[in-house]
């Protein structure tokens, strides 16, 4: 008897909730970015779990998770570039001080 599908899904759900809470409450933009990475990782766990225990098990879920990892890497590169441009212009990386569009 192997580990059931729901155990993997609950594990991914807990990871996603940790990432969501961190992304909503942290003040440092680097940490917010890395929390988003954690949420994407939870989605990848779901994809790989469904590729083994889903309705139509096969290799496709693993391929989808590879594509997600690629897009996440591109996203983190662009996000960090935006962060450095922001730091150069505003001298802050605190997410509550970036409120030009609210004023």
């Amino acid at each position, binding site marked *: 008897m192997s580990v059931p599908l729901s155990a993997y899904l609950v594990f991914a*759900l807990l990871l996603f909730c940790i990432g969501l809470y*961190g992304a909503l409450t942290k003040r440092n933009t680097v940490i917010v970015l*890395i929390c988003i990475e954690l949420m994407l990782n939870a989605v*990848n*766990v779901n994809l790989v779990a469904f590729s083994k225990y889903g309705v139509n098990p096969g290799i496709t879920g693993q391929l989808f998770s590879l594509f997600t990892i690629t897009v*996440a890497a591109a996203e983190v*590169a662009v996000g960090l*570039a935006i962060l*450095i441009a922001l730091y150069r212009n505003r001298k802050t990386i605190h997410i509550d001080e970036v409120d030009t569009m609210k004023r």
Partner: protein
Amino acid sequence: MSGQYLAFFVLALIALGGGIFMLNLNKVVHMVVALVFTFVSIAGIYVLLSAEFVAAVQVLIYSGAITIIMLFGIMLTRHQDDGQSTGSPLRKALALLGTVAFGAVMYIGIRTLDFGTEAVGLHENNTEQIGIALYSKYVIPFELTSVLLLVALIGAVILAKKDDKEEGE
């Protein structure tokens, strides 16, 4: 097979512990190091799910590249008070409430989900299977991914480079 259960519980415990430490630590570098534990444990979970190639990619990209690029981002910006003093406690409580509500609703949905199917042979020649599927059925998304990576590379360079005109003024 109790060995699989044991491995799953140990890996899940390390991963969730890394996440909890990330939420509660004070220094930004410590948070990133706590998340490395999470990423490596998720690679172990992938091995349990017979996805060895994805596990190797996870170790290379997440615990290698993304962690290093985050550490560069921390190095290049200044952290005087390390940002633990977040906004009002009301906002924090609301975020916690929303997250817990979301988690509870999703948990009710997936608690007993089981399709009763299990893939066989995913672990045999895993990389070969992925390569065959990638170059036959999914070749167009694969090529589009290369375009996306090129766009991200050029965009990141343009965004992060110094603006010479403003520098001269």
